């Protein structure tokens, strides 16, 4: 069977588009993915289109009516929150089977307002428990608490982390930091999930172009192609309580186990994870379902920052469904977009995350277990700063500027601060390399400025390894 590659993928920025049509939203993402691959709709041999809200509405065919009716087979896919991922997987299977070489997968959704799960007519809601999605996903968190003592704060930290990641992603619906107190103090929707622990209800679309290895080579696209090492899907194994409380773990565990086997790796080999954080409780439970930690250790994993950007195995660096948004049919392909980003698109945030990922890969290479490489005899620890983040105050001129240039030349990412905004802008321009330099105006005599400097450095580069406190503070300056 042929290996299958992603040669083009993209997503629109999720948001609220009540004036657009579902096929129109799908068409936008489809054209973006085709452009990313450098191909046209004429190159596509089949289309799989995922959408839930208009599952009977022939969305795929209507999308082709907008971007080119070439007569290709269209399969419309509806599979709950896995709708987009299923469209992608179906496209993958047809290439695996040798039926097609080039297939387009699209996911799209235009969401209504309000809580998911509402139906019409007489409802047992409230009289016989709750049938809202927040309640169902609250239960999996509470069950985890019951088993392992997981706390409200530990669940809330998932949102703190993913909202923090959102500051790096221009395609996030929301891009704001939310401190722990704010997450825990927000309106409770279904305990322990507060409003800031529920995914964002938005419209959106995402699309991917999948291709057989033979075709990738024929078109010379191998330098941009991302190989799919495995895809698995499961339904639930029988679980005692699933009729009373849906079991979201059994199927996930089964699919993960099979996917690892198909890819020939184990969870310890994974450097980066995008998972379905429809609620903060879900992300924590999925750490264990995916084998990122042993059962019962998910709370410790979030406490230790292991799943944050810069941690052992960053999860949802995209900011996840919690910030990026969750347009049901598009979500699955949007998650893949984060893992297999379009190399030709030079967005700064994507570039930053890619740079980080490369760094994470280096750290985890066999034989490279130690995060910090120890200097060889005669070698200064300062000779190689690759992957390190240096903060240099008073960096706009003089010694500070020279230190910043030196650190950059040794491979570091550099944050310079200075009290003089104009000098700082000049220095930033002179240092070039926009992805490696961040300039922040700060008066080091002001606590708030210093805190903001630290926040900006971490938001941009994920960590700080080196601080050169070069800015001079004189007694007069403190008056």
């Amino acid at each position: 069977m042929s290996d299958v590659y992603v040669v083009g993928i993209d997503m629109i920025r999720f948001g609220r588009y009540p004036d657009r049509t579902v096929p129109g939203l799908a068409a936008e993402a489809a054209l973006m993915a085709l452009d990313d691959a450098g191909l046209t709709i004429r190159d596509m041999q089949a289309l799989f289109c995922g959408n839930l809200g208009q599952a009977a509405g022939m969305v795929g065919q209507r999308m082709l009516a907008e971007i080119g009716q070439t007569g290709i087979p269209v399969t419309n896919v509806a599979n709950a929150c896995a709708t987009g991922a299923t469209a992608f997987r179906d496209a993958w299977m047809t290439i695996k089977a040798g039926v097609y070489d080039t297939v387009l997968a699209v996911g799209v959704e235009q969401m209504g307002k309000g809580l998911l799960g509402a139906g019409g007519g007489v409802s047992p809601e409230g009289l016989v428990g709750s049938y809202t999605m927040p309640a169902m996903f609250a239960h999996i968190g509470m069950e985890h608490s019951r088993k392992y003592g997981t706390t409200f704060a530990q669940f809330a930290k998932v949102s703190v982390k993913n909202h923090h990641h959102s500051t790096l992603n221009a395609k996030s619906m929301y891009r704001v930091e939310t401190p722990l107190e704010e997450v825990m103090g927000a309106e409770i929707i279904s305990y322990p999930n507060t409003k800031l622990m529920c995914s964002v209800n938005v419209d959106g679309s995402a699309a991917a172009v999948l291709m057989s290895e033979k075709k990738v080579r024929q078109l010379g696209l191998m330098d941009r192609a991302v190989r799919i090492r495995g895809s698995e899907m499961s339904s639930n194994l029988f679980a005692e309580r699933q009729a009373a409380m849906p079991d979201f773990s059994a199927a996930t565990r089964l699919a993960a186990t099979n996917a690892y086997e198909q890819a020939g790796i184990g969870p310890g080999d994974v450097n980066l994870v995008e998972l379905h954080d429809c609620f903060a409780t879900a992300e924590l439970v999925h750490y264990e379902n995916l084998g990122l930690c042993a059962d019962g250790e998910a709370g410790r994993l979030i406490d230790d920052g292991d799943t944050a950007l810069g941690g052992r195995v960053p999860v949802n660096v995209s900011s996840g469904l919690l910030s990026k948004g969750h347009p049901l049919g598009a979500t699955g392909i949007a998650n893949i977009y984060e893992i297999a980003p379009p190399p030709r698109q030079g967005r700064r945030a994507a570039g930053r995350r890619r740079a980080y990922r490369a760094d994470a890969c280096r750290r985890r290479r066999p034989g490279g277990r130690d995060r910090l490489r120890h200097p060889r005899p005669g070698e200064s620890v300062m000779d190689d700063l690759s992957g390190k983040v240096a903060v240099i105050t008073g960096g706009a001129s003089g010694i500070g500027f020279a230190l910043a240039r030196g650190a950059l030349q040794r491979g570091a990412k550099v944050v310079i601060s200075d009290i003089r905004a104009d000098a700082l802008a000049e220095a930033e321009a002179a240092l070039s390399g926009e992805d490696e330099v961040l300039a922040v105006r700060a008066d080091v005599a002001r606590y708030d400025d210093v805190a903001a400097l630290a926040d900006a450095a971490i938001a941009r580069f994920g960590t700080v390894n080196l601080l050169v406190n070069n800015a001079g503070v004189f007694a007069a300056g403190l008056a």
Partner: protein
Amino acid sequence: MTDSILPYVKSGDGAPYLAGSRCGACGQVFVGERSTCAKCTARDKMEPIHLATTGRLYDFTIVHRSFPGVKTPFVDAIVDLDDGAHIKGTLIGVDPDPARIAFDMPVRLEFREAIPVGADRPYLTYVFVPAEGATA
């Protein structure tokens, strides 16, 4: 006669009960009437039973936001009935406060009539209440 809110809630001519099924092959107990076992896949081995009226609280969440017209907060409870069935219901008679609700607390099934959201007349439904000896 009053309609019931869900098919497994039976009026029983004035002695209401919850309908269940027990698999004659593997012993699994299910809520509601059915003919095939989801656990062992046996067919035509199901015997209809009346579900137990006592059990323990396995899991809960406190619902503060629900569909329009539904009064909140309320406690959504997952109860392990003493006959092995697992069932969802609303737990009343406790403060809707996670610090005041204990996993495994004993609960008892009670039937009552209530007007559901979207309706203009009462339906037969059930609730869980703390059983004697419950700890909070």
